[in-house]
């Protein structure tokens, strides 16, 4: 599956609530294929809520999220990878079994599994149960999912947490390749990820619960 270069993420007048609290409202943005979007803001500003809303975990209170030029028959959620605070790996399975599950379940292929293991330097750990890995290695295994199955939209929530310098460089390389092939990356972060960001949304303004903005 090759990503359509003409892909475009369109968020229209999006609002989300948790309980009775409005996290953000009136959020408009669009991101074209090949562009990264960095979401910044203080803790509790709604960055994670925003990403989960795009992925479809949290139903939008108002507004829509569309992936123009994507697969019409699939929801945005089915066309994205979401790397959240939780790694989504099984501690009782080995590294290789985890990767194979990602590939089989998310409809990647056997080659991509090997590719992912190699890319994230997990090949040597293949037969170790994921529960024994260090925090950074677990994170790498989680990120390997991005390569195991190809999807046009990547939603990354603090992807670099507990990654060492070398792994951060690998991640930056993966992101650059993904963008070059026409994909879209939306990342929430506090740290400088060293990607060539073309757009930034600042959620600190939204913390005031006034209308949204971005540039």
């Amino acid at each position, binding site marked *: 599956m090759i990503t359509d270069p003409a892909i475009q993420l369109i968020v229209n007048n999006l609002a989300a609530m*948790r309980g009775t609290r409005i996290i953000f409202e009136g959020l408009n943005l669009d991101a074209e294929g090949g562009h990264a979007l960095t979401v910044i803001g203080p803790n509790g500003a709604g960055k994670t809520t925003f990403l*989960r809303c795009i*992925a479809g*975990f*949290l*139903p939008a209170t108002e507004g829509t999220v569309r992936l123009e030029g994507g697969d019409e028959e*699939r929801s945005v*959620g*089915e066309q*994205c*990878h*979401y790397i*959240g*605070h*939780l*790694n*989504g*790996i*099984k*501690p*009782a*399975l080995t590294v290789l*079994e985890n990767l*194979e*599950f*990602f590939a*089989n*379940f*998310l*409809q990647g292929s056997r080659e991509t599994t090997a590719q992912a293991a190699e890319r994230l330097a997990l090949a040597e750990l293949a037969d170790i149960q994921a529960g024994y890995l260090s925090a950074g290695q677990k994170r790498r295994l*989680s990120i390997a*999912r991005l390569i195991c199955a190809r999807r046009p939209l990547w939603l990354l929530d603090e992807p670099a947490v507990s990654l060492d310098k070398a792994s951060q460089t690998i991640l930056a390389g993966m992101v650059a390749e993904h963008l070059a092939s026409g994909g879209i990356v939306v990342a929430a972060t506090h740290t400088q990820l060293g990607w060539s960001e073309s757009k930034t949304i600042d959620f600190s303004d939204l913390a005031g619960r006034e209308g949204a903005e971005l540039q």
Partner: protein
Amino acid sequence: MTAFLALIGRDLRLFRRQGGAISTALGFYLIIIATLPLGLGPDLNLLSRIAPGVLWVALLLSSLLSADRMFHDDYEDGSLEVIALGPLPLELVAFGKAIAHWLSVGIPLVLLAPLLALMLNMDGRAYGPLMLTLLAGTPALSFLAGIGAALTLGLRKGGLLLPLLILPLYVPILIFGVSAVDAVVTGPGNFSGAFSILCALSLASLVLAPLGTAAALRLNLP
């Protein structure tokens, strides 16, 4: 289809590797049946009369023990997020998870039942019907448990809530399962009538329970 099989395969592997759920269920089943004659006294007639009912009730409770784990681990470690973004609709995910639970907990319990029946001096004629009814009824137990497991996902102390939610749904299965066996052993009534209803209940839960489970899972995703 690949995704569906991958999910079931992964769950079976996890059940086997972690082992806790299966051995807890089997151990609990064994303990109930082994202690029961001690409490009731050595009245063989009484034991053999109540054997089918006791075996059914104890199996229900044993399978409930592992029910809360059906989605809990996936929820805690974030796998549920990965699964929710997969190509499978959540209804099919719920279906697959329940199948995996049945294969790894339900089937071993059914296989243990005839051994335990020996300890209760169950009537020889009852073995066949008991196995048949257990085989037909246990899928429903796993599928219905899925609803409760998904509903109680976010609750920290959901331990007691799950049986309270699920046991009322188990009651018809228990009633028709036991009455089918009793029809053969003590009569009156006929086996096929009760057994058909049991099968119908089981098939209905196969279709309907995943809808409820998926709806409950969606509530727990945000």
